[in-house]
Every structure is written in C-alpha cells, then in structure tokens.
C-alpha cells in the first residue's frame, strides 16, 4: 500500500558516503564530531579517516546517495578495508569523561499509584517455588525516560551517541553496537525481534522504489514499531475527535500504552492467538490490520468484519488470530486458558506443527473479576502454555489503583496461583519485548502460564464517555505525556543514533495523519451492512423462528416505508 502522499523534500537522514557529497550537502544530520570532520579536510583528522573507512566497509547497495546516484566503491589497495566495523575497535579505548554523564538515573518508579517500585536491570521471571521478591516486586526496565539504556549499577549511563556515530538504518549494526556497549543486556539485544529485519518488506511501511535506503527501511522492524506507535496515536486522536463531531458513536484511545502493543506484538508469532480486552488495537495494527479496516469497524459499514453488530473498537480478525473483543470485562481470560489447552494438546499430538501460545491482555481492573482468578487457577493447575499480560495503567475508568487492590499490584498474585511472573516497565518497548519473548519461550518449554504486569499510565480518558479531569489531576497526565511517554522515549532513543530528527518525525506524523484521514473518509462514505445481517450468524443455520421474524420485519418495513426509509 502506497503511503507516500506528499512531495516532501526528503531530509538527508542518511549518512552520505562519499567525501564529495558530504561537503556539498547542507542538510547532513549526524553527530557533531563527524560534521566537524566533514567540514575539515578528509585526511587531516583521524576521526574522518576512520569515519570514511567505516563507510567504505558498507556493502555497495547501501551506499547510494539521496539523489539517486550510485556510488560504487572501487577496491583500493591504499585504503585498508577492515573486516569488522570500526566501532568494535574504537570501543576498546577507555571512555572519555565527556562521554559519560552523571545524569540522575531513577531508582524507583511510580506512574499512578503512591507505591514506589524499585527498578531493576535484571530480567528475572520469578518461577513458582523460587524465592519471591521480598517487599515490592521490582520493575524490569532497559531504557530510561531519556532514551538511554540503564547500566547494571543504575548509577550512571553512557551517552552512546558520542561513541557510536550515527549510521544508516542498519538494524544489525545498531544491535551489535548496543550489545558491545551494554553487555548487561547483550542477551536481550541479540534475541530481540525488534533488531531483526524482516525477510519481506512490511506492506504498511512507505514504499519508494527509488530509494535503496527505503527498500531497507521497509524491512526495518524498529522503524516500523516507531512508525506504528505514531500511527496509533494519530488514529486515536482523529477518531476520538470524530466521535466528538458525532461521526462515530464511541471510541477508546490508547495514549500512553503504545509501547505495550508494539513491544509485545513483535515478540509473538502469527500462530499465537490474542485475547484482548479493548485497549490493544496496536497489537492488531502490528499484525497487519489496516487503517481502513479499523475505520470500517468504527463506522460499522458493509466492509466491517463484524458486520456492523458491535460498538466501535470491538475489533476482531480471524485471519490475524485476534479474537473479537467483547465488552464484559475479564471474560476473555478464562477463554484464553481453553485455547492454550488446545495448543498444548496439539503440541503433544503433532510435533511438526509450530508451537503456539495464547496471550490474554487485561487491565488491573479486570484482574479483580472472577474470571481472572478462575483462569489463573485453571492455567497453573492444568499447565497451559500462555501469557497473562496485565496492563496496569493506574485507572479503571475513575477507580485508581488504591481502590482496586490492597496488595502489591497484580503480579504478586502469580506465586499464589503457582505461576511464573515478572513486572516490567510498560513504557519501555525493549523491556516489554524482552519480557514477552522470554515468557513465551518459558511457557512453551515448561507448558505453564507466565504472568507479566506492565506498569504504564493511561494518558487519555477511559473512553469518549469519560472526562478524566473529574477524578485526576491533569498535571499528572501532563507529566506522563512530557516525561514518561513511550513514543517520546522511543523517539529520544532513535535520535541518539541519528535515525530520527525533527524533519523525519514531522514527515512520519504527517504521512500517518493523512493516511488516517483518508481511511476515515473512505469508511464513512461506505454504506451500512444489509438488513439480513441482523438475523444471520445467531446460529450456524437460520432456524425457523428467525426466518419468521425476519419476514415479519421486512413486511413491516414495506408497510411503513416512509417512517424507516
């Protein structure tokens, strides 16, 4: 799907590969040292040489210029071409003082409740039977609010951008750089699906065949996560406003929880079935639900997969293994246990088939329902491979967490049920991804459920029928938006490596905004579903009494055509 709708001058966010272009281009975005090096003569500074050498090691198809010129490197014996990127060698040198910041690294986290939870850089899924954390369960986090990764001693972090020069959008290079820089998180980076490019181009990334970088970008999982978080934010804003204008009847936003969606969805496999509550549209978006399909459901037109039977945001898609959302809270949790049990039996009987889990999402409010408790008990007793994912976002409509539970959140219940569990920072996309990936592996290996509690903050209202200023301070919301917002954090991280800048972000936001508007207008223009959709699918075959009632209705409408037109 072509999303390139504007003739926007492309910012040169990619590094120029030849000395010639470097000097002539005026919109190079890179670290200050490299720019300074580019301004000077090429041979004088070591940094420039190393910089050049670094780029000379790039494969040729990545060395294209912004203007389409192909710059094929000719092998030269004068310039030695190392086999490894220079970053590896460089990092063996001791860090300079200015590269290390002593910025305060928070040791505790508290998004909405008054409980302060200690932050840890060690991901430990607490197994049943192990020593549970004494006191408050710690929150696993990899990336701070500033977009920097945490050091194990939580004392200071290193400004990596000064050490690793910003590069082309090479995921593997970024991954290796991060692995070297943060050996503590080495395992997470190396196994993270966010750093693995896709084999085939993602159909919803902007496709521009002229750009080789773009051809690479369309397989870039990390950039897709970033773009989809922005897309979700835009869709929420626009459709929320559409409800205010009376164009749709209802909407629920996902502000502040985008990292949970993209982080967890990217760690799942397509055969894993998702049981969602209602604030998980980002999962569906990651799996490939288009903006048109979202809008079709919200506008209840004839292309709605649900045939116009449910309120907006009750999405469901069999093809993408996403169970249809229902309004009663918590009912999906027990159902997920049943699905996981089926997968367990399938895995036992059919070893060739790819193993699958079921993952169920719910808020901290739904974790008080009967279905949550029954489901936890069933899953742990029967040993079903599944993930219980709790989005603890601080509020259940107007009920703050202080009125929801007295214990230590939801995760402290896991050992009581005999279940493994971990608490993560829900605004850190890397931590969520790592936790879900590890939990999935554990669930399949041990055929047991794993609970993940993701701490986050619900920045938006509960729904369009809610005005959250009536029960919470808007300063709290503003702080969440300005400091701990997941998109902001991801943005800062990408800017550290020069992958994003103001222009690039503005371009993405504009593209997505226009795409949402177009999808919305197209959906609004479509007619509604046919009348017989009211009577079909109640049973697999329409029984006689429904046939009778449908006939009655049709006759009634014919008689009173004026009234119903």
């Amino acid at each position, binding site marked *: 799907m072509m999303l390139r709708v504007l003739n926007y001058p492309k910012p040169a966010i990619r590094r120029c590969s030849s000395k010639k272009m470097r000097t002539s281009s005026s919109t190079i975005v890179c670290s200050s040292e490299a720019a300074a090096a580019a301004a000077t003569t090429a041979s004088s500074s070591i940094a420039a040489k190393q910089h050049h050498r670094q780029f000379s090691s790039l494969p040729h198809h990545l060395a294209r210029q912004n203007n389409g010129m192909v710059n094929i490197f000719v092998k030269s014996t004068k310039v030695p071409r190392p086999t490894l990127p220079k970053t590896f060698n460089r990092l063996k040198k001791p860090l300079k003082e200015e590269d290390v910041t002593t910025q305060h690294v928070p040791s505790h986290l508290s998004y909405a409740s008054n409980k302060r939870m200690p932050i840890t850089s060690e991901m430990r899924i607490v197994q049943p039977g192990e020593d549970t954390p004494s006191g408050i369960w710690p929150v696993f986090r990899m990336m701070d609010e500033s977009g920097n990764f945490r050091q194990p001693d939580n004392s200071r972090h290193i400004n990596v951008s000064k050490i690793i020069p910003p590069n082309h959008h090479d995921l593997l290079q970024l991954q290796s750089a991060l692995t070297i820089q943060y050996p503590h998180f080495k395992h997470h980076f190396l196994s993270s699906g966010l750093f693995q490019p896709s084999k085939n181009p993602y159909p919803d990334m902007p496709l521009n065949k002229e750009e080789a970088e773009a051809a690479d970008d369309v397989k870039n999982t990390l950039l897709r996560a970033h773009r989809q978080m922005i897309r979700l934010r835009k869709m929420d804003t626009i459709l929320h406003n559409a409800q205010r204008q009376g164009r749709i009847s209802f909407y629920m936003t996902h502000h502040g929880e985008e990292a949970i969606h993209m982080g967890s969805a990217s760690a799942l496999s397509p055969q894993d*079935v998702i*049981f969602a509550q209602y604030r998980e549209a980002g999962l569906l978006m990651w799996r490939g639900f288009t903006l048109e399909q979202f809008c079709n459901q919200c506008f209840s037109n004839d292309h*709605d*997969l*649900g*045939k116009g*039977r*449910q309120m907006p945001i*009750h999405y*469901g*898609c*069999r093809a993408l293994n996403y*169970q*249809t959302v*229902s309004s*009663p809270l918590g*009912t999906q*949790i*027990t*159902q*997920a*246990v*049943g*699905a*996981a*049990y*089926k*997968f367990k*039996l399938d895995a*036992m*009987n059919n070893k060739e088939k790819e193993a699958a889990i*079921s993952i169920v999402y719910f808020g901290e409010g739904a974790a008080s329902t*009967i*279905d949550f408790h*029954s*489901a936890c*008990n*069933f899953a742990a*007793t*029967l040993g079903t491979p599944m993930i219980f994912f709790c989005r603890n976002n601080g509020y259940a409509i107007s009920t703050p967490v202080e009125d929801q539970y007295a214990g230590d959140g939801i995760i402290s219940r896991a050992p009581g049920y005999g279940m493994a569990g971990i608490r993560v920072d829900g605004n850190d996309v890397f931590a969520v991804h790592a936790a879900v990936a590890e939990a999935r592996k554990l669930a399949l290996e041990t055929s047991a459920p794993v609970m993940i509690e993701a701490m986050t903050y619900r920045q938006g209202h509960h729904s369009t029928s809610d005005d959250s200023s009536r029960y919470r301070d808007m300063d709290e919301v503003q702080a969440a938006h300005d400091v701990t917002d997941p998109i902001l954090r991801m943005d800062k991280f990408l800017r550290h490596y020069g992958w994003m800048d103001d222009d690039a972000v503005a371009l993405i936001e504009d593209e997505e905004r226009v795409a949402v508007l177009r999808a919305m207008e197209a959906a609004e223009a479509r007619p509604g579903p046919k009348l017989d959709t009211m009577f*079909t*699918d*109640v*049973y*697999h075959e329409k*029984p*006689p*009494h*429904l046939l009778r009632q449908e006939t009655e209705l049709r006759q009634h409408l014919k008689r009173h055509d004026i009234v119903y037109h």
Partner: protein
Amino acid sequence: RLVVCNAITKRRRHCLVAHLMLNLANVLNAKMMATLLSRRYKSITLSFHNYQQHLPAIIGARSSYYSSSAAATPHYQEAAYNNNRDDDQSPPQPFPYESYNPTNPDPNYPSLGPTSKLNLFQSINSALHTSLSTDPTAILFGEDVAFGGVFRTSQNLREEFGSQRVFNTPLSENGIAGMAIGYASVGGTAIGEIQFADYIFPAIDQIVNEMAKFRYRSGNQWSCGGVTLRTPCGAVGHGGLYHSQSPEAYLCHTPGLVVVMPRGPRCAKGLLLSSIRCKDPVIFLEPKILYRSAVEEVPDADYEIPLGKAEIMQKGTDVTIVGWGAQLRRLQLACDLASKEGISCELIDLRTLLPWDSETIIRSVKKTGKLIVSHEAPITCGFGAEVAATLQQECFFHLEAPIQRVAGYDTPFPLVAEKYYLPDETKNLDAIRKVMELAK
C-alpha cells in the same frame, strides 16, 4: 379433646379423630404414631372406610391434598423416596413411574441394530465414549469427572482416553464454561460438566454474554460451536433448593444458545451425540432422577436425533399435552389415567427447548383444540409461558379451552414439601379433566 369427642356422634368423632391424628402426625414421629394407633385406637382405625387409603396420610408419608370425598389417589405403590424419615437407611427407591414401552421397540425410531438395557447415566456414558472415540479433539472436563463423576456418567473414560482428555478442573463453573468456549473457538470439541444445574449461575456471564453471542459478534469469523455443557437438572426427591432446579427458562431467553433436555436413556444418547456435534453451543440438561431409575433398550450404534424437532410420543384427538424431561413420565401416567376415562391425549416431548419446534405443537393443537403444558420449574416465566403465548397467538381460533399450565409454584424448590410442589400426574389429570369440561 378425646373426652369431648364422646359427646359427638360416632361418625363425626371418627372424622374428628382422624383430623386430630393428622395434626398429631405433623408433630409426632411416624413410629410413635404407628404404635399409638396400633395399640390404642385399633378399633377406630379398623372401622374406617378404605383405611388403607388414609393410613399413609396419617403416618405422615403422604397426605392427600384433595378432600377425602374426591379421593382419586392413583393406584401405585407409595415411593419411599418421598419419605422424610431420619432413620431411613433403605437404598434409593426407583422412580415409581414405569418407563413407557420399556422393552417394546419404539415406533418413532427406525431399527438401529442391537441394543443393550441401559439406564440414563450408562447411555450418556455410551454417548460420551462414542464422541471421544470418533472426535480426536474432544475433551471432557468438570468437577469430579476424572473418577467417573458424581453420577457415574463419565466412568471408565479417563482410563480409556487418557488424563489429557478426561480431567478434573478446579471448582469454578465460570472457569469451566470459559475454558470450554476458548477450547472450542480454536477448533476443538469441549464437553464441560456442571455438577448440578443449580450451580450453572456463576457461569451465566460466560454462557449468555460470550457463548451465545460468540459467532454473531465476530461476524462469523470466530465460533464456539464445539461447546457442550452437560448438567443434571430437575427434582430428585430430596434435593431441596439447590439440587432440584430446572434453569431452562433462564437459558432459553438467550438467543444463540441451544437447550436440550432428553426424557430417557434412548433419546439421551442420540440427543447428546447431536448436541456434541452441533455447530452451535449446547446446554444439555439431564434429569437426574432418571439416572438410575430409567432403564431402556438403548442401541449400541452411533446415532443422532435431530435437534430442534419435537417428538409425538402418543397420538390422540382430545387434548395436546406438552412437556420435557422427567415430567413426561408423570404426564404419561396422567394420559393413561385419562384414557381410562375415555380421553384421548396427544403427548408431545419438546426435546429441544431452544430453538423449539412450534410447528408440531401448532399442528397438534389445531387438531385437538386444547393444550396443557407442564414443567417442574416455577410457573411464572417458565418455559410453559413461552409455549402458551406462542400457541394462543397462532391457534387462538382453534382453541376450545384456555391453555393450561401445570407447573411448580413460585417458591424456591422446597425439600419436605416437594411432593406438594411438583406438578404430578394427579394435578395433570385434573387439568385434563378441567380442559375437557371447559371445552364442552
């Protein structure tokens, strides 16, 4: 009081004594009453006309709720299961109604090959065995299902099919229902057991809000047709409030569900196999009084009885009687008694309560002009109300008498007063006579 009686005439005194004895019976132990009577008042008791008829009333086992003049008590052996004696160590007596056509082949069913004499729980066991054998994704679960079930419906299944397919769940009905839905939604056949229909209410959210609407709300992308929830229902003689309920009315008010109730072992096996294989979620209500007491020749073959179709048990011309489950046995007895008075009754078993077969009933009522609906559940908003309302709408001008509903009272299901609560054959016979009288 007895001294005062001497002043009154002999006949009246006897009646007075009988009345006093009745009152005393409520207070005194039955054994004490028997000794009292046998020793002191033998002369009085012997001189009673039809004393044997009233003796059970005095002892306290059962008393006629009609006046003694209209005593048309049925000629059956009093069932000991209705005793409320504390020291009753006797084994449970069989349900006192004989199964209709106990050994003769049923003309409604074509020949299905060799048969075995099975009771209800054995025939259900047979159906479950067949289902687990033919469908590799079928699983059976619930509370206490693994050792054979509290009613022995699942015995020997775990040994044969393994602990992964036949297993106990923790004690949570909503969990059982939800798990069944989830299992079926990804392509399996889930047979869940709710131990008593009285305990189905924790699962009502899953049943009504999820199970019934699963296909509809997803636009036919997802469905949970593989769900079958089996549960014992109905009066059992000593069940009280929480082991005797018939919740079909609550369930039948839910579009999207299929509700089935068999009346005996032979149709239970066929209906259960149909229900398990049905592409819609089914609640299968099993009348628990019939588990041991109803014995019929059940075919060994794998056979299915179509859902959504009523069965005419016996043809008649005078009055249509509709019922379901164990109630049909009382209705059969009432029909037999009525036939002795020359009334020809058409007895219909609904079998499937949702969606129910109104066409058969309408056709029958158009022929007979009179209708009686009978069920154990309380009369207000019971399923009989639905049948009555539909029939009066469709057959108003064919009706010769108002439609009668003979059902339980609007009280919670009582323990001691169960014999008064149940719409037994006497009440139904009265209703038949009343309807014939009104139609004249």
